[in-house]
């Protein structure tokens, strides 16, 4: 018998343009063996990312070099198992964390609060958060905006940023959070922006930038877009679906 290795499709050169699984070939109507196993490996890695944890000490140290103080907070979800089944717990601060915010608020109001939460991929935070926060912090200080303490949250979901920013009396919040891992991207970072954050808001009140990572939406472009959206939010005093995103990010080639 002769060996029967995977045979990709003749248009395999199109793979240069996308990370999508194109031109993988077929045997009958089915996926060839190697392509099948590549998929299974990526799925295994994504599953592992869901169960990854924040590198707390290292993140705290590096974030403190950007801005101080840095507060370490925890949601009401005690562990990953509970986090996955009870999103309501992930949206609220644990009692102790809630209390620990007292004294850090600014009675005249901060312009911006940056919240960093593990979400569904602590790996994304471990890899990308410090660079984004650091560049965003620089630009924000150029604008003369006041920045609330940086908040690092374990077992957190997007809406937890509303509770935190409201307690700290911040005008706007950016939540940087690990997105649901994809097969080719176990480390995608998402950014959710809200004007006048307060508990109880839903997605219609937020703007979002997704897939922040070097192979997706690169750091610098993401920071520029964040600044654009924040400036618009501040000027127009609203966020969400009413804030149309007209940012010319130059990603489209004519």
């Amino acid at each position, binding site marked *: 018998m002769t060996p029967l290795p995977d045979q990709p*499709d*003749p*248009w395999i*050169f*199109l*793979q240069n*343009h*996308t*990370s*999508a*699984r*194109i*031109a*993988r070939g*077929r045997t*009958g*109507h*089915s*996926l060839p063996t190697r*392509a099948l196993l590549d*998929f299974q490996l990526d*799925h295994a890695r*994504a*599953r592992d*990312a*869901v169960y990854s944890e924040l590198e707390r000490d290292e993140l705290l140290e590096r974030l403190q070099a950007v801005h101080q103080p840095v507060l370490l907070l925890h949601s009401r979800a005690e562990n990953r198992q509970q986090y*996955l*089944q*009870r*999103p*309501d717990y992930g949206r609220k601060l644990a009692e102790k964390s809630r209390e620990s915010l007292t004294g850090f608020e600014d009675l005249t109001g901060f312009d911006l609060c940056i919240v960093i939460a593990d979400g*569904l991929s602590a790996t994304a935070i471990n890899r990308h958060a410090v660079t984004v926060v650091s560049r965003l912090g620089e630009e924000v200080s150029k604008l003369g905006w006041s920045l609330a303490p940086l908040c690092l949250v374990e077992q957190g979901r997007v809406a937890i940023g509303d509770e935190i920013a409201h307690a700290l009396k911040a005008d706007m919040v950016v939540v940087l959070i690990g*997105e*649901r*891992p*994809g*097969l*080719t*991207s176990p480390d*995608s970072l998402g950014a959710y922006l809200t004007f006048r954050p307060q508990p109880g808001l*839903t*997605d*219609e009140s937020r703007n979002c*930038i*997704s*897939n922040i990572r070097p*192979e*997706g*939406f690169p750091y610098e472009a993401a920071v520029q877009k964040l600044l654009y959206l924040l400036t618009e939010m501040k000027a127009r005093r609203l966020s969400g*679906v*009413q804030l*149309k*995103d*007209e*940012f*010319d*990010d130059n*990603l*489209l*080639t004519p």
Partner: protein
Amino acid sequence: MAYRSAVRNLTYRFDDLKTLLAKATPLRSGDQLAGVAAETAEERVAAQMALADVPLTTFLNEAVIPYETDEITRLIQDTHNTAAFAPISHLTVGDLRNYLLSDEVDTPTLTRLQPGFTPEMVAAVSKLMRNQDLITVSAKCEVVTRFRNTIGLKGRFSTRLQPNHPTDDFRGVAASMVDGLFYGSGDAVIGINPATDHVRTVVRLLDMMDQIRQRFEIPTQTCVLSHITTTLQAIEQGAPVDLMFQSIGGTEAVNASFGIDIALLREGFDATRALQRGTVGQNVMYFETGQGSALSANAHHGVDQQTCEVRAYAVARLFEPLLVNTVVGFIGPEYLYNGKQIIRAGLEDHCCGKLLGLPMGVDICYTNHAEADQDDMDTLLTLLGVAGVNFIMGIPGADDVMLHYQSTSFHDALYLRDLCRLRPAPEFEAWLLRMELMSADGKLMPVTTTHRLLQAAGL
């Protein structure tokens, strides 16, 4: 009104219709999260027994969400067709299950009954059904819609080609489009989820896809799945909008969380119809739904997630859509925990949508934080093929590199076509033959690098 059921020496009491519906629902994590699920397996069956005895007329008199506070309840009650309902008006929910499964009920009967069903009636009967029943009843339905081709005919099955790219890069999108077309995908729609809801991006993606469609005279429709307000702007700017897309839910409050209401959908519908771009029909709406969205927006009013889902279909049917797609496993394990729950929900949505007269497709999918994998998707795919699903997704390698979830691949669609002897939409099938992509016996043909479709990518 309270409902009761006696099991052995124990009497179960259910305070009202929405409680009864929730407790009668087969187990799923979202109803547990909402605190509306049955506490025990016995309570669930007791609720099903009580539900089986409820007359269908009860659903016309007792709303699960008050008429005064919810425009979807008003829509359901105000548009109910009593003439269509008359032949089943004497039945209970349990009788309705028997009737739907009986030999006397065929495709024309179900088509006549559609306007007589309310979402809650249909949700109720589905709760008494096993997976097999859901498949049997679905397979009797036929819902056909048209724009540039004919979707939903018996013996046929279509795919949405979904060439998403993480940064909406044109060449990346085009590469996935070409890959899909070579695999015979795209007769339901070629539809991109844009990475950002950005009117300029949307317009340019629409232009790009429309150029490829026209250049190769592909009998299909294209769509960028942006928010309705963005697509309305794109229409104002003269973009080639074939279909108006929008995600919808089953309560006024969840739709508010999506930034929409029925009036806005009407505006989108009118603006798209006015373009008159269809050639064989004018079904211009494309809706997506999925169990759990109402709870996710804290907008469920204590109604179980499957009933909320079916209420969304009342909104959809108002606009004679080309496609309705339940994105069944996208929302995550807090709503559908594992493969078993996703499979059940996919069959329910498909069956209930078809009973209400909708052209149901299913995004057979899961996320990486759900307890599910590709084996579960194979199972649901096969069941839906037998059930006569109108369309599924076609994504390169089943891996969406923008939305970060797994769905079905071009290969998966070929598998279903082969095993269930299903063919693409007739106009699209003729095109595949003309382009020498498919042979007369429905098999894919080998393609070389000189094939003219490769020019499409401009690469």
